[in-house]
């Protein structure tokens, strides 16, 4: 301080320097494991508070008998039935594999690790930070799911105690997909504006209709097959184009979830 005074620095500059110093001290303290964990608890609490407030506001602004509320109920029912359908298809697929590929040794084991959302990037960035990292076996490319097998996103960066998850509706997200119950990849699902997804590169000969459920095909990295992506809401066909495109609607709101499951391929 004597040094700053000897430089005849104005009071505003001195305060600004103290702000910089304070922020640097907090940043350094945060890298200490104990303090980092305390910060994580506070951040998790703030995410839960924000999510709960958002859910309450959503309920308050939506009257019980409004069309939106009825639509939400229908979506809940659709989600339940889709989950059952996906589980059934998964079981059928497994049974088929066991019957036909006798002697096949499964090498890729998947374990689910529960994680909490610590922070969210700006809405357009579509990434969240979770409180599980390399120490819990989380790796880049691991799938993150919510509910009963709805793909939430994929892990894109990992540190010791946390990981960044790119959400499904991010424009950078590209997931090979297929229709539920069909055993082959028919397209690539990418994020687009808003919460809807865009499915492209669907061959012209593929049979795709509104209302069908789209799931992961398991073709990419650590993403298992049959994780629900959403339902087809519209199909865009152009006779001159070699491919069909479709709009997919996810069956959950990514902002409403604060606890997720990471499907870890190499558990610790």
């Amino acid at each position, binding site marked *: 301080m004597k040094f700053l005074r000897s430089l005849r620095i104005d009071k505003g500059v001195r305060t*600004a320097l103290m702000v910089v110093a*304070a922020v640097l001290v907090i940043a350094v303290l945060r890298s200490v494991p104990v303090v980092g964990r305390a910060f994580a608890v506070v951040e998790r609490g703030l995410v839960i508070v924000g999510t709960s407030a958002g859910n309450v506001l959503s309920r308050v602004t939506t009257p019980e008998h409004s069309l939106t509320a009825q639509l939400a109920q229908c979506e809940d029912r659709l989600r339940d039935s889709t989950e059952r359908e996906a589980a059934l298809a998964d079981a059928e697929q497994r049974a088929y594999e066991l019957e036909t590929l006798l002697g096949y040794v499964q090498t890729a084991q998947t374990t689910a690790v529960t994680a909490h959302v610590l922070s969210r990037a700006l809405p357009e960035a579509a990434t969240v930070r979770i409180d599980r990292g390399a120490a819990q076996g989380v790796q880049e490319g691991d799938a993150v799911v919510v509910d009963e097998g709805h793909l939430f996103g994929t892990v894109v960066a990992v540190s010791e105690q946390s990981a960044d998850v790119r959400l499904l509706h991010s424009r950078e997200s590209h997931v090979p997909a297929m229709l539920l119950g069909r055993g082959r990849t028919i397209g690539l699902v990418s994020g687009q504006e808003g919460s809807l997804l865009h499915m492209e590169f669907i061959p012209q000969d593929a049979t795709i209709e509104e209302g069908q459920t789209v799931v992961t095909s398991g073709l990419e990295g650590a993403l298992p097959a049959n994780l629900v992506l959403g339902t087809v809401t519209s199909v865009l066909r152009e006779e001159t184009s070699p491919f069909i495109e479709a709009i997919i609607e996810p069956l959950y709101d990514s*902002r409403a979830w604060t606890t997720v499951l990471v499907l870890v391929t190499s558990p610790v």
Partner: protein
Amino acid sequence: MDHGARAGDLASMIEGLFYGAGLWLTAMLSTTAVPSLIAPLCYAPLMLTTGLLVLHREGVVPGVVWLVLGAVLLGEPSLVLAAAVGAVLVVRVFAARSVYALLGLGVATGGVVAIAQGIVTMLRVLTGGAGGSLAPIAWRYVLLLVLLYCGYVLVHVLRRTLLRLFVIRQHEY
């Protein structure tokens, strides 16, 4: 004299620490509670609002430092533009500490930032990259003005309460 200077140093030290903690808390809220809210509330530009309030009340240097550090903490370059535009406007146009000056600062700075963000978004869309909608930018602008007004009222209420409780002295403001 020396005693007075030391007291002044201590005051600016405490003030700096207070602002540092406030800045960190704002950054934390901007990445946790705010984005978890429903649209359009999730677009609330908390860091820009607090930065402009500091710029308006405390002067150019603390305000610019607040916004630039906020840009670093949140990884949002538009806050640096806001700092540059805001600093010029506070010195040349909106020097008064009235609510009208604050709202004028918000309209002008927020407008420049919104236009810059709009141009970047449109360029991204035109070049086939990962674009975005203009709606969040518009919402952010509207929410900025609402939050600035609420922030102004809150600061006044807080100041009056602290004066009444003798936590701060009249001549400090």
